[in-house]
């Protein structure tokens, strides 16, 4: 199953750092997502774009994870050569990850 079926996501940017939230629709799925969508897996998933580390923060009260990806926006919003300099569309790519239920 794709992550998109059980969670939603939004991307934010600050300089060369992208953060992507991952929020489960149903709180019961939080543990599943927390267990499987690790920082290491996310770093691997974005390996072509993210040159720095990926840190994961957990916010159980919101049923959410927050992935902070450094050196992820081609040098930062002002000087990136990417078409999507802010990385707004990265959330859609995250939701394409597989999850086992």
């Amino acid at each position, binding site marked *: 199953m794709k992550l998109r079926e059980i969670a939603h996501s939004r991307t934010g940017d600050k300089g060369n750092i992208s953060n992507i939230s991952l*929020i489960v629709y149903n709180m019961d799925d939080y543990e599943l997502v927390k267990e499987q969508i690790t920082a290491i897996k996310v770093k691997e998933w974005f390996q072509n774009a993210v040159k720095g580390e990926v840190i994961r923060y957990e916010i159980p009260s919101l049923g959410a994870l927050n992935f902070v990806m450094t050196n992820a926006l081609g040098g930062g919003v002002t000087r990136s050569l990417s078409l*999507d300099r802010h990385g707004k569309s990265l959330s859609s790519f995250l939701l394409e990850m597989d999850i086992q239920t």
Partner: protein
Amino acid sequence: MKKIRIGGGAGYSGDRIEPAVEIMKKGDIDYIIFECLAERTIALAQQQKLADPDKGFNDLLEYRMEKVLPICTEKKIKVITNMGAANPVSAARSVKDIAVRLGITGLKIAAVLGDDIYSVIDDYRDFKTLEYGNNLSELKGEFISANAYLGAEGIQEALQGGADIVITGRVTDPSLVIGPLLYEFGWSIDDYNMLGKGTLAGHLLECGAQLTGGYFAEPGYKDVPELWNVGFPIGEVYENGDITITKLAETGGKVTTGTVKEQILYEIHDPSNYMTPDVNADFSQITVKEIGHDRVLVTGATGREKSGYYKISIGYKDCYIVEAEISYGGPGALEKAKLAGDIVEKRIQHTDLSFQELKIDYIGVNSLFQTSASDLSEKGSGCNEVRLRVAGRTTLKEDGIMIGNEVEALYTNGPAGGGGVRINVNEIVSIASILIPVEDIETHVIFEEV
């Protein structure tokens, strides 16, 4: 319990005005904030100010104020905005002129000053930049602006002085809301728990429709009603710091726990330590609850003592960026676009054009999500249209223009059927940041009255 209603009137510098007017007319709000200052907007505004000392504030300030001021006086709504950009003083004067022209009297306009430290930036040459870790003096490129992200105190002072319209330069976005909360509720400036809650309210309201269904819809998964007519958010903030987010029933969009959660985490790094000049806010224990249709209660933010530093954004002339595109269609569209991309790369090499970085994308295949070469062929086979995009960062404008020319030259020198060339070359102002002690900056407020 005392509460105030605050409207989010803009999500970015050029945002729509009608939804803001609508919540002012029908939303029973006490305040409206307009957050209109992206990271480098102020650097560009500083350049306008250099060319004309009366300019350098938000281009839409006058347009917005002409629509907003009559409602402010009729409904007793106060405006807090960072539309002053590089020139809050001239912005305040401009608002006064509009009030006079519209026959409005009894209006007090404040400009909050102190964020602009461009004249003393040389004192900080040895400070390390947060982006690169090197000394500020090692940055190549002419500095054109230096502004501190101020906190809420200047706004609070303006309101205490009787201001109806408060215009700032650079302040942190949540401070636009914390200022009114300090003033209305008498919260102490070192009551960090309350400031943490106020920061959350400001953080939620500063992005306009991103809280009410904008930047959210995903057909079939997250549908949003009448998104074309999305309404702007209204936050009811209670004296104890609880927040209810809502919107006007007659507008499009929606307020749900989903829209609110996405915005809570928007542009947040460590949720337990969101640092502003007002407070180190903690969003890690927040709970959200739907308490009615389009009504979500948000509670549980806290805060700790602030860092004692101001973040300074320095705008500097960095480089030029060229973007040039051409489209290929029909069977083999990707192969033709790839041939064109190879040609451009070889021509740049052959003609010895100098660049810092070059990027070749195939729009429709890999321009948003970077892929490996093998994935590219797999994803692109069967694409009926592919647009080659060549982007280059150069030190000299001339090199950027020449890279663009190589894409245009594909019309007559490239693969069959290439069309729709568009080229732009822009000077790029970038941002570097340093932290300086708060004691170095003095905020003050000036008033205009009609």
